[in-house]
């Protein structure tokens, strides 16, 4: 691992100042991804500013039925908070199906949102990768790409966004709060993750010296029947082949409201806006779910090894909507 220096921030202002002071400084939260990337030579940080002393660990129920989650709240603490379990079961389930028990005890929610793709070409330090070294190309386009994305891809990058909880957060319109030298910002979760386009190295609309301080999730009753389903080769400790966050509200057999987001298939946590639009006002039937899923995946681009995900994602979406519906009826 490259030589590093380290300091520990006392408060948010201190952390911002410390990171701003060094051109290769970065925040260090749980470290579960960051240290990996440093070891792999992908992260080029030379100075780490440890933010674990900052008072950003709260998980609070908000009066509107929503949540506030501190950026340093650990995955396991968030997953098991009663307000999360009852108000947003999909968020809890997404967290518990991510990583391993040990990692969940360390990894923070803010860090989770900033985790980088598992694309092996990013991490091997050798192959062409526009995320690691812009302009070198994308080795995954024609290489082993079973795990790669089919939604939101570009000719420059097809890397999958790995987070589970981010899928649930975009489904429920979470807002990411940051602070930086220019002050505080509130960014819709869906906007917090950028499509690769021609600049896959830019993954979030925040600066290197801008710090995530918390995540708000607005109250929404539909979330109480939400589900998060994750499908993968093995039953734990693996990133999703496809995952789905789903919640549905039905009145007299007609869909009145719906949330649907997909993981494991997109270059960002994928809010299925088009499927939602296709469902609202229509019948809550499997055939309608199937049609809506097909609308969402209509523009998906499959490649040699990952084309199966286009169909798999649709079946998973239908499964998720059915389960949420079953939850309402039971």
């Amino acid at each position, binding site marked *: 691992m490259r030589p590093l220096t380290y300091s520990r921030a006392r408060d948010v202002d201190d952390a911002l100042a410390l990171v701003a002071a060094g051109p290769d400084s970065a925040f260090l939260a749980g470290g579960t991804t960051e240290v990996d990337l440093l070891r792999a030579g992908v992260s080029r940080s030379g100075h780490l500013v440890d933010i674990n002393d900052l008072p950003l660990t709260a998980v609070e129920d908000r009066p509107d039925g929503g949540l506030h989650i501190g950026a340093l709240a650990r995955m396991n603490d968030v997953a098991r908070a009663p307000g999360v379990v009852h108000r947003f079961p999909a968020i809890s389930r997404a967290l518990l199906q991510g990583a391993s028990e040990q990692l969940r005890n360390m990894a923070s929610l803010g860090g989770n949102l900033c985790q980088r793709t598992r694309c092996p070409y990013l991490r091997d330090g050798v192959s062409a990768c526009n995320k690691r070294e812009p302009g070198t190309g994308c080795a995954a386009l024609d*290489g082993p790409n079973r795990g790669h994305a089919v939604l939101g891809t570009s000719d420059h990058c097809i890397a999958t966004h790995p987070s589970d909880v981010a899928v649930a957060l975009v489904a429920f319109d979470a807002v990411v709060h940051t602070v930086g030298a220019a002050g505080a910002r509130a960014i819709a979760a869906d906007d917090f993750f950028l499509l690769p386009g021609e600049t896959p190295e830019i993954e979030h609309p925040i600066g290197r010296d801008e710090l995530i301080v918390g995540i708000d999730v607005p109250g929404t009753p539909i979330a109480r029947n939400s589900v998060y389903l994750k499908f993968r080769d093995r039953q734990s400790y693996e990133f999703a082949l496809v995952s789905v966050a789903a919640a549905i509200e039905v009145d007299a057999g007609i869909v009145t409201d719906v949330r649907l987001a997909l993981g494991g298939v997109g270059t960002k946590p994928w809010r299925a806006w088009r499927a939602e639009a296709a469902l609202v006002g229509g019948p809550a039937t499997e055939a309608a779910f199937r049609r809506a899923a097909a609308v969402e995946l209509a523009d998906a681009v499959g490649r040699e090894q990952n084309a199966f995900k286009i169909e798999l994602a649709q079946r998973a979406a239908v*499964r998720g909507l059915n389960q949420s519906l079953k939850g309402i009826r039971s």
Partner: protein
Amino acid sequence: MTSVGTPVTRVDGPAKVTGAALYSAEITPPGTVHLAIVGSTVAAGRVTAIDAAAARAAEGVLAVLTHDDVPAVASPPHLLPSLLGAAAPGESFFPMQDTVVHYAGQPVVLVVAHTYEQAHHAASLVRVDYEAAPAITTIDQGRERAYDAERLFAGLMPGREERGDVEAGLARADLRVDMSYRMAANHHNALEAPSTVAVWNGGELTLYESTMGVRATQQTVAQLLGLPVSHVRVITHFVGGGFGSKAMVWPHTTLTAMAARIVGRPVKLMLTRPQMFTSTGHREEQEQSIALGATRDGRLTAIRHDKLSITSLFDDWAEPATGVSSQLYACDAYLGVHRLIKGNTMTPTFTRGPGETLGMFTLETAMDELARRVDLDPLELRLRNVATTDPRGNPWSSGGLEECLRLGAERFGWSGRNPAPRAQPDGDWLIGTGMAVAAYPMAFFMPPQRARARIFADGSATVATSTQEFGTGVLTMATQVGADALGVALSDIEFQAGDTDLPNSTAAVGSAGAGMVASAVHEAGTALRRQLVDLAIGDPGSPLHGVDPASVTVTAGRLTSSDRAGATDTYGELLGRNHLSDAEATGTWRPPPLDTPHGLLTFGAQFAEVAVDPQLGLVRVRRLGGAFAPGRVLNPLLARSQLMGGMLWGMSQALLEGNHTDPRTGRWAETNLAEYLVPVNADAPEVTVDFVEVHDDVVGPLGAKGVGEIGQVGVAAAIANAIFHATGRRVRSLPITPETVMEPTPAAAPT
């Protein structure tokens, strides 16, 4: 009271769970510095330039070594399986002798620094330029170059096995089953990374090495360095899993010794997880096909079994896939052919259940298909074809297959199975069951095995041989065998191992470790017991003076005679009376000759229940049941763990494990445990292990046949057969992943 056969818990358990057990990389002699290896990023070509200036200038760096610095090996390595007891390089190649690159990951630069982190950081600063040449790393790339292998395994085994007329046998068959499969490469992924600590003392070398064969390491390193074998000592206290990856001796070990000699300090190497995919071999990518001819009542008339695989440029290596398929069933016409493609990979190597796990996958899924075609229960089809002798007409050294099939079926609840596919829906899932035979060959290529037994006047005793504990439980088992042979209590005897200074035993490979160690220890303990009994009989001061030696038994160090009731002596008193501080004896076990007139297979039966989600392609194994006939079971607790571990690996082989090279670069695509999948606890189903104990006089004095690999054989076939039973579809590749199981078009769930 005998200890052998009882479920003694591991003697090294407390040391392992408290961290007191030291693995090779945890041993740090004073002054130890650290080695990092830079591997080639191209799979073929040559090194054109190395810029090591930045690395040399980095903090803590002692040396950056290239092919210009690494000495020439004293004699070129020649691949030889470590079971033979001689030098056992994993490939007939040694790197850093020139600029030529034959495979990705081949060592090209060594960096030695004061700390591990410094060494790895400096290694990342080395710039190597290559002139890359086209590389062949997949079967598809080299298919047109395939050739028939004359001999495999350094000439030990024929590439082709033939008896009778297969074409005639297929022609006269009432029906024929053809199956073909593509099987991805596998990597071992032991938890402990291969590690070496090399310490020179003058012209003598001590290695602390993560190996399955201390003697193989000693001889290989001595040969490559041109040292007398007596000047190389290898010590291995504990190994965190081998599975074949540490059965052979790979270049990194000798490179570490070379680096230590150059820098004049003890040098420690621990491979990184990604390097574990390019440093110790692998189970090669392969294709297998089989043709079965059978009569309408399900009797085999011909078997043709073909394997095509990719090997290195240096060696004709193939896992032998036909050792069981050529013997298991009574069938007059058999042809087994291994074809090879030379490519830019390391020489592949032993990977648990080498050859036979995939060979049996092919045979046993074909038998399942045959059962369907002749409308017989798969179990009945096996029973109808079981061979009662080996193909030469020799009796099995011990059998038990029929008993395993019947016991396994009973315990699993096989009878009454509805053979129709897709007959058992369960919500989104389809349930299926499948079975397969397990069988694994025994090979007696090893030289005589020696052990030493020693007893002290205070009654405490030791038995010793140079084998090493790599998780199998050999320390516990050998302690039990030694206690029984010598006639002392388990608490009074200690088994010493893991050091080439101890009497010779061969690398613990080929499911032979337990048999070899147990036999040698038994012979040593028995020899010492006889020596002490003779001493007592000849001792006028002993109550047993003059009795018939055959009348004497020894239990817990106490000698009694059936000819002289009430007379007792003890080892301690006997030695004390004779003014002896200790006594010792060496025992030697000679394996049966290679032409022993016996069939040599270990048998078992595997059963599996799976749930398949046909929409999403998910397969979950709900139950595995195995029944095995491993001769005498030396310790049922250890044997069960070994077999259960093998069965879980079989599940992993069926559903999870597969590695691929990127055909454009020749580099492995999956080089960590997030990408290369092995099962986690959540994947582990209910596993049942049952024993059929069979008596075997041929395989050694204790009649133990080994449980290291048989547990894995047949599991993948049983699971694949269960998937067929659940879904009505056969997947033609391994691992069986969701995209291969998913129904291609949306289908209504069966109701």
